[in-house]
């Protein structure tokens, strides 16, 4: 049963991550890959404040969200003046650079990771309580994002994504919207980090490398970028499917790479046969040739 709970908790965490990521790249069209680092910042902050200051899990998680949002400013302020490829690469640099710092600094536990994070819930019902909390937070986040996107603010975001030039011509402040959305998305990732830290009681830097970015991107892309339920579907699939494969009782030596191969192949095939993802974005879709404000050119 505990095993099932751990899957549910992971699903909740990744729904929050995928949805917040989708807010940034799908709804606002900001090509940042650095989402895992904000997940990390939330987890480490929550863990460290709980260990050293004895903060309660909820407060520590909120602290994690705030720290993640603040760090997002470090990235968004200098680089949001440009978009597209350049932002993409600088976000990778930001993620990996910050990760390098975490790996080499003593107080984060450096390479070995941060362990012995106190857990607020103990006892036989731990798994159940955590799953309920995780899924509830996931539902709240999805609902909150939906509310943002459907409201007038959401229309502004979509307009900015689809044609930034026109948007600016109308006198709207694109920079401010970008910074706010980025901070919100990263803050939500920070909350997922707190959830993670208190369930596993252990955070290690290995989990936040480029492959983590690829995993989150896959969830958003396969699920359907720009839609509300898309990232939810993507997260569930990406967590549940590999676990299901492990029950096929294949020889363990080949199971991990085989799993990986099947998965990436699935994503590639998907990108070709259904590029809009499982769940199409609701609302007006960008006109052909107007992809996220980028110059169209050979790729």
């Amino acid at each position, binding site marked *: 049963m505990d095993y099932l709970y751990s899957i549910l908790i992971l699903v909740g965490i990744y729904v929050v991550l995928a949805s917040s990521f989708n807010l940034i790249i799908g709804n606002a069209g900001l090509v940042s890959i650095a989402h895992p680092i904000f997940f990390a910042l939330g987890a480490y902050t929550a863990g460290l404040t709980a260990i050293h200051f004895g903060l309660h899990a909820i407060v520590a998680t909120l602290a994690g969200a705030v720290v993640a949002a603040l760090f997002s400013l470090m990235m968004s302020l200098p680089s949001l003046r440009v978009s597209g490829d350049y932002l*993409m690469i600088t976000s990778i640099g930001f993620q990996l650079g910050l990760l390098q710092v975490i790996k*080499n600094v003593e107080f984060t536990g450096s390479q070995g990771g941060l362990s012995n994070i106190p857990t607020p819930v103990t006892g036989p019902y731990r798994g159940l309580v955590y799953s309920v909390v995780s899924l509830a937070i996931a539902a709240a986040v999805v609902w909150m994002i939906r509310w943002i996107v459907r409201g007038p603010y959401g229309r502004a975001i979509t307009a900015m994504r689809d044609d930034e030039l026109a948007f600016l011509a109308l006198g709207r402040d694109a920079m401010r919207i970008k910074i706010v959305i980025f901070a919100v998305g990263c803050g939500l990732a920070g909350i997922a980090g707190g959830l993670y830290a208190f369930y596993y009681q252990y955070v290690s830097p290995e989990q936040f490398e480029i492959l983590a970015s690829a995993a989150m991107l896959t969830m958003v892309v396969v699920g359907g970028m720009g839609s509300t339920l898309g990232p939810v579907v993507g997260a569930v699939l990406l967590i549940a499917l590999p676990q299901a494969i492990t029950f096929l009782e294949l020889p363990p*030596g080949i199971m991990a790479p085989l799993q990986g191969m099947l998965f990436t192949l699935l994503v*590639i095939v998907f990108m070709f046969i259904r590029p809009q993802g499982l769940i199409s974005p609701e609302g007006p879709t960008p006109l052909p040739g107007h992809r996220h404000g980028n110059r169209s050119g050979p790729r």
Partner: protein
Amino acid sequence: MFMFDAVVLAQILWTGLATSSYMVLFTIAFALVLKVVKLWNFAQAGLMAIAFYAMFAAVNQFQWPTVVAVAFGLLVTLAASLAFEIYGLRTLRARRTSSLMFFIFTLVCSEFAAYALTFIFGTEPAPLFAQIVSPVRILAGIAVSDWDLLAVAVTLVLTIGLALYLRLAREGQFMVAVADNADLAELYGINAKRAFGAAFAIASVFICAGMYLYGARTAVIPTTSLQLMLFAVIATLLGGMGNVFGAAFAAVALSLVQSYSVLVIPSRWQGLIVYAFLFITILFFPRGVNTSGWATRLRVRRAPAS
């Protein structure tokens, strides 16, 4: 306390240059594809892994002589990169896919390659040849190994060769034209698709050479190439997007800075240097280091008023 003596400084220079060789090769491959195809080719990590393991299989499992093994590796890498371009990129291009999707596609391709190679070869770290130590001689107090000499020679030959090709050969000049403006080049009858193919082909040569040098010196696992690639990406950014030789120069400079940094910081922080440079670049060159502007300004200054 670390002595700042001349021999040590010279040794760091030599070894730094020699070990920058494979980084330069990977950077050129990446920068060339970016320049011509306008693609941030993260699939290069997959191609690098494929190149290594093809050569590895040829040397260790088929027991072929080195030259044949390298040729085999080159062929396999060529096939993989052309398949990637023809079946993958062309389709996505025709659909006017966004650059984010291209990025995800290239990254997922690299992941697939890494998993497939893990499946076939396992994950035991393996160098290309059984022995990784090459003969060393001490010249004026500096240790110079056979590998160092080979690395520097191969890199110089290939880099100069590419420069000459782009400047003098017709196909090379066509590639530059396509890089500048693909649509305009097509109007003049230049086949853009061929140029893309040629870019990938040349990149394959550089990738193979780089992995040969790297694998002769260190053990490799299927995910090693992704780490190496990141350096190439940052060097490309620093060198100016669209400037292949600027990127190569940046790769050497970055390598040397990293090597010399041990004089002042603990070695475990060396990896951070690259990111520090990236951060500085973002701060001071928010639109990217644009070196083509300088070249134009220089030319304008030199041309007499007519």
